[in-house]
């Protein structure tokens, strides 16, 4: 009797448990159903678009070629810092932001062909530059649509332009480039025309290179509203934003509904690993696939057989590698004098830095602001050598002699002592600064290192509160030296931090901007290059190839003139790791 | 139970404390006998080894640094020192209980007094918790605490010093021990309460029939309450006697000195005599008789300065033969009857 009632209780419990389990399962199921429904709906919406695309296919084929290889797998990047935003256009966007969104989520009308380095069509079906260079019109592909199915229209382009130049929007540095745009005119649903105020050789690149934002998503009444939209980017690109797990990762999944050729890799994961050592460890452990190593890391690991068995070490030049420089603030009494600046350059043993700090035989000592393998710079200019004797001689000539016998050079009672601002925590910068300090001491110049956290460092840089500073500039496919070297960019938070002022240089820069013919322009730039070399407003320290580590399971990682393009990579099915 | 009615006898007990500065002989060659149902008093200045003797009986000498180096403690026919720790635990609190000097700190502040009494009862007597609690209340009543039902659940800090000492006594007698060691039970109490406390002990002794080892430095108490007395000086026993005999006719010069310094009714002395000098440091005892530097005889005597007198039984009763009810021992070369 007793045992039976026990049995009944047990059965009741069992039933209850089963019901609960079923309930949970059904909930999960319904979630899935819902998801699938959503996806279906997506496809349907997209379907409409694709259908229309098919209709038009005769008129415009998709840009580029179908990517080769098997579909599937994920690509996991390592990011050295969490991007502040996923909006590529705001001031706070970093290199990392661009890695994530540019070309993956947001697309522009035109893009650079990675091999010929000429502009080619992307969202645009055609473009037309008026002979005077003052009118640029674009026609948008009819099949181009955002990931939510909305077609890309002329309104989106105008909206994007207006957002960038809106003073309330945090895009001041970008807006600066569009100063020459007078207005943007909508010609039709799919056609826009940019009217320029003056001729500028980069106008096409700038107008065509704008990353288009969907107006229906980003429309705002108050600019702050826009500034606060840092996550959940929506664009027309081959990937869709999936999630941003703050402090951990950002995930993009493939846009199954992409208007162009779909990439093969299903997911792009950006792991945030702030610790450089940890990033390498994770790569070795197979937890990440792709990273940008520090020079030291590359130098050491690319020679390590065990490491290179599973990891491909990519090292390649492209026009945007930029260079590292030490800037001498020309408002300071000592750096006013060209000879002193030149002496400083003579003091920096750049070969030694290249050999022992970078440990990269491919790295080069630049002579100016242009890409060393590009056509803008004058290839005949040779870097100043390391020559402390010459430096001493120049300093003596300039009147900086140790008059009072305290070991420090002085002139008119001003001792040659200056503070050298560095960004704290960047070991390479610190190492170079320590080297400069030691070398300067040897010739009787006292240098005090002044480390600041990046935020303060950049403020002081903008306010030009430094004697000397080191930093790196990134480059562009075609450089316009205006931003960094034109005297109008001194002060008022402009980028001519060191206060380089040279009338001839200014004239050359201005003229080059107006010169549409590339050869003529480059001639002007060669002359400008020579001036920079002679004046040495910076000590150009090094430029080095881009370096990447990539897991060997990825195929088709071709190095173009513009670097690598993750969109064309794939993993053969048998080596795929993630589903 | 030993043949001559002794409940406990200590034979040649020696205890040493090993410190950084050397070995301190806290108790040396102590022998004494406690008779059943009687009160035995152990008297001496502080630091003379009387508390250590008591703790030795309980085997509660902290080891290290202390160590019982030799001797026997025979309790009801068995040597306590040869028992295992486990066997000893069965005796502690059950057969032999102890009341300590400091009522303020001898109770655990975080348990109620009831819990602390019950703990002992439950341990030694196979009783249920309810019975044990009932016993605890009864014990509290027995020691004269008003409203024991209420008090049993109170914490020590809610009670006065006298009350706490009563609780200590209640705890000690809760298992009706054969021997109660009371280590200066009244020193920390007010004078008025002292008497009550001692009366209570007397009363309980009669009721339970236990022996009491009363450790004190107060000769007044000894005279009133003890049947027998042992006087300790510098870790040795100087003299043992029935209390009447001792007070009437002290044999050891130290005892004599102590008694002289005791104020007596009826005698008008302008100034009480004291024993000159101080108690020697147990690390550096003088050679010979330890009392000789302070002794009116020994300070000039070669033998006292070199040879230590052992405790010997003497037959010297002075004038009053009625005092012969107890055996008498003394350790002094010059005591009458010592060298015969």
């Amino acid at each position, binding site marked *: 009797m007793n045992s039976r009632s026990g049995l009944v209780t047990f059965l009741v419990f069992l039933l209850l448990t089963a019901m609960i389990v079923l309930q949970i399962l059904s909930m999960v199921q319904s979630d899935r159903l819902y998801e699938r429904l959503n996806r279906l709906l997506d496809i349907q919406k997209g379907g409409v678009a694709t259908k229309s695309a098919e209709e038009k296919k005769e008129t415009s084929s998709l840009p580029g070629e179908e990517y080769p290889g098997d579909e599937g797998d994920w690509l996991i990047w390592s990011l050295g810092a969490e991007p502040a935003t996923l909006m590529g256009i705001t001031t706070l966007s970093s290199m990392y932001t661009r890695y994530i969104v540019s070309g993956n989520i947001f697309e522009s009308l035109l893009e650079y062909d990675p091999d010929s380095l000429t502009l080619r069509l992307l969202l645009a079906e055609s473009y037309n530059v008026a002979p005077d260079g003052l009118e640029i019109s674009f026609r948008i592909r009819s099949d181009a649509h955002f990931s939510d199915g909305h077609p890309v229209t002329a309104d989106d382009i105008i909206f994007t332009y207006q957002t960038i130049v809106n003073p309330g929007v945090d895009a001041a540095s970008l807006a600066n480039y569009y100063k020459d745009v007078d207005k943007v005119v909508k010609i039709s649903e799919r056609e826009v025309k940019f009217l320029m105020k003056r001729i500028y050789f980069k106008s096409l690149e700038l107008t065509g290179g704008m990353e288009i934002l969907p107006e229906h998503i980003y429309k705002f009444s108050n600019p702050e509203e826009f500034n606060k939209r840092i996550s959940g980017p929506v664009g027309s690109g081959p990937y869709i934003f999936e999630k941003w797990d703050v402090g951990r990762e950002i995930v993009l999944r493939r846009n199954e509904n992409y208007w162009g050729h779909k990439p093969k890799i299903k997911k792009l994961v950006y792991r945030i690993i702030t610790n450089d*050592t940890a990033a390498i460890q994770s790569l070795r452990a197979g937890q990440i696939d792709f990273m940008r190593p520090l020079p030291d*890391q590359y130098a050491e690991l690319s020679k390590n057989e065990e490491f290179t068995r599973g990891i491909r070490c990519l090292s390649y030049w492209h026009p945007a590698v930029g260079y590292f420089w030490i800037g001498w603030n020309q408002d300071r009494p000592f750096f006013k004098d060209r000879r002193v600046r030149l002496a400083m350059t003579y003091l920096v043993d750049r070969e030694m830095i290249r050999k*022992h700090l970078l440990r990269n035989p491919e790295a080069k000592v630049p002579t100016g602001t242009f890409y060393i393998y590009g056509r803008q710079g004058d290839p005949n200019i040779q870097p100043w050598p390391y020559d402390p004797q010459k430096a001493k001689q120049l300093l003596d000539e300039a009147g900086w002699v140790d008059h009072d016998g305290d070991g*420090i050079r002085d002139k008119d009672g001003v001792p040659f002592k200056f503070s050298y601002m560095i960004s704290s925590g960047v070991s390479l910068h610190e190492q170079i600064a320590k080297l400069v300090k030691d070398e300067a001491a040897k010739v009787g110049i006292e240098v005090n290192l002044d480390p600041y956290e990046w935020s303060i460092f950049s403020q002081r840089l903008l306010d030009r509160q430094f004697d000397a500073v080191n930093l790196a500039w990134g480059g562009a496919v075609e450089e316009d030296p205006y931003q960094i070297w034109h005297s109008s960019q001194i002060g008022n938070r402009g980028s001519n931090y060191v206060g380089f002022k040279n009338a001839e240089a200014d004239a050359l820069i201005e003229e080059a901007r107006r010169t549409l013919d590339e050869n003529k322009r480059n001639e002007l730039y060669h002359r400008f290059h020579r001036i920079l070399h002679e004046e040495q407003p910076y000590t150009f320290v090094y430029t080095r190839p881009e370096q990447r580590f990539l897991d060997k399971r990825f195929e088709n990682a071709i190095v173009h003139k513009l670097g690598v393009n993750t969109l064309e990579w794939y993993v053969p099915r048998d080596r795929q790791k993630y589903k | 139970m030993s043949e001559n009615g002794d409940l406990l006898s200590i034979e040649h007990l020696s205890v040493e404390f090993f410190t950084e500065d050397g070995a301190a002989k806290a108790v040396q060659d102590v022998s004494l006998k406690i008779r059943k149902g009687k009160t035995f008093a152990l008297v001496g200045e502080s630091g003379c080894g009387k508390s250590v003797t008591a703790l030795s009986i309980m085997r509660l000498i902290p080891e290290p640094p202390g160590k019982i180096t030799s001797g026997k403690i025979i309790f009801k026919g068995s040597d306590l020192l040869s028992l295992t720790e486990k066997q000893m635990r069965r005796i502690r609190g059950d057969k032999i209980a102890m009341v300590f000097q400091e009522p303020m700190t001898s109770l655990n502040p975080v348990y109620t007094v009831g819990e602390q009494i019950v703990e002992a009862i439950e341990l030694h007597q196979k009783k249920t918790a309810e019975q044990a609690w009932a016993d605890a209340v009864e014990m509290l009543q027995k020691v004269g605490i008003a409203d024991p039902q209420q008090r049993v659940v109170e914490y020590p800090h809610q009670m006065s010093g006298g009350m706490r000492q009563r609780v200590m006594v209640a705890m000690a007698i809760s298992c009706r021990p054969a021997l109660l060691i009371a280590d200066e039970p009244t020193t920390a109490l007010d004078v008025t309460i002292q008497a009550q406390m001692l009366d209570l002990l007397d009363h309980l002794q009669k009721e339970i029939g236990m022996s009491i080892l009363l450790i004190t430095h107060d000769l007044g108490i000894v005279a009133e309450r003890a049947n027998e007395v042992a006087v300790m000086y510098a870790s040795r026993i100087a003299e043992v006697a029935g209390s009447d005999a001792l007070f009437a006719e002290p044999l050891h010069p130290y005892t004599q000195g102590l008694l002289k310094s005791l104020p007596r009714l009826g005698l008008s002395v302008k100034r009480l005599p004291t024993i000159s000098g101080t108690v020697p440091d147990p690390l550096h005892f003088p050679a010979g008789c330890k009392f000789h530097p302070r002794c009116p005889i020994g300070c000039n005597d070669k033998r006292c300065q070199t040879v230590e007198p052992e405790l010997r039984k003497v037959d010297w009763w002075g004038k009053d033969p009625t005092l012969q009810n107890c055996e008498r021992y003394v350790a002094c070369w010059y005591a009458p009857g010592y060298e015969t």
Partner: protein
Amino acid sequence: MNQQMQKKPDWGLSYGELVWREFFKSRLNAACLIFIVFLFAVAVLAPFLANDKPFVIRIDGRLHFPIFANLSASDYSVFLAAIVGLTQLRLIRRNRRKIEPSIRSDVLWRQVTISIAVILIGTVSAFIFVPRRLDATDYKSMIVSGKASGAIFAPVPYGYGRTDLKSREQPPNREHWLGTDDVGSDVLCRLIHGSRISLSVGFVAVGISSVIGIIIGAILGYFGGGVDFAGMRIVEIMMAVPTFFLIITIVAFFPRSLLNIMIIIGITSWTEDARFIRAEFFRLRRQDFVRAAVSLGLPLRSILFRHMLPNGIAPVLVNATFGIAGAIFIESALSFLGFGVAPPTPSWGQMLSLGVSTTGRFLWWLTLFPGLAIFFTVLTYNLVGEGLRDAIDPRLRKAE
């Protein structure tokens, strides 16, 4: 421990001497004190132990003394402080023999005040009058090239700011006994010079925190009541604020300098002292000698600091010893996180941070040696603190 309070005149031993004796009973304590003396010696003599300049060198037939010629103002003030400190210690020993016990503490206070004043004035004038010199002449290459001869170098012939990229990140070897760092500076040299930072941060920060703690504690304890209530709220605030975070914030937000770091550590760690002193003064203010002092109409300063303070200073002293260990630890943590003194000034914590290279290669010599230096220094001060506490604590002293 030097505190000369006469509690039991007939014992012939002052309280300070008693504590001193008790302290030295333990061989470990003595060893620790010797280690501290060693550390001090290293810090004081750093320019003579590790320097890229020679003591003496013959150039073109003339003798030069580059190390001595290039001693900086801070070197001179360190020497001065060391000499005054040693003199003070001698004076204390002399006091014990020559000065009447009852006035010893007064004499001692006066001497200490004078010593501190001498050090302060000396330091300031050193910084004003000693010219700053810069001499980065490469004497070694002069010898190699035969321009100079007869040089005597320091045992560690490297300068802490000198770079040598060719020999960067070398493990310990015959030339660089403890290896080199990321720009080829000698680790041993940097360790030796780094001891100055650690020790000075320790002492100055604790000095500041003790002074603040004593003053606040004295005022709260003496006045009690409303003053105490308000003061205790401040103490509570300081206790509740996440101290280390506060220090990082202030160090990061304000201009970076060693003095700032010292001051910040000092003003964030006085609460314990204040509480000790407050409790002690609570007890003391009811005692007769304080009442007597008050009734004599002595000024408050005199009552608080001459009459009451000596009775409560022992725990502060113990606390200060632990405080030095704590301050050294905090300074190295700050440097480790990149908030320390500007490079290339050597700091142990900053050296530690270079220990794992970005490639994940473990430069063990850059981690091990500075780490050991911090560890042993902190450990020693903690041990001395512990020893002092045991020596001062009467309960433990006369344990049964």
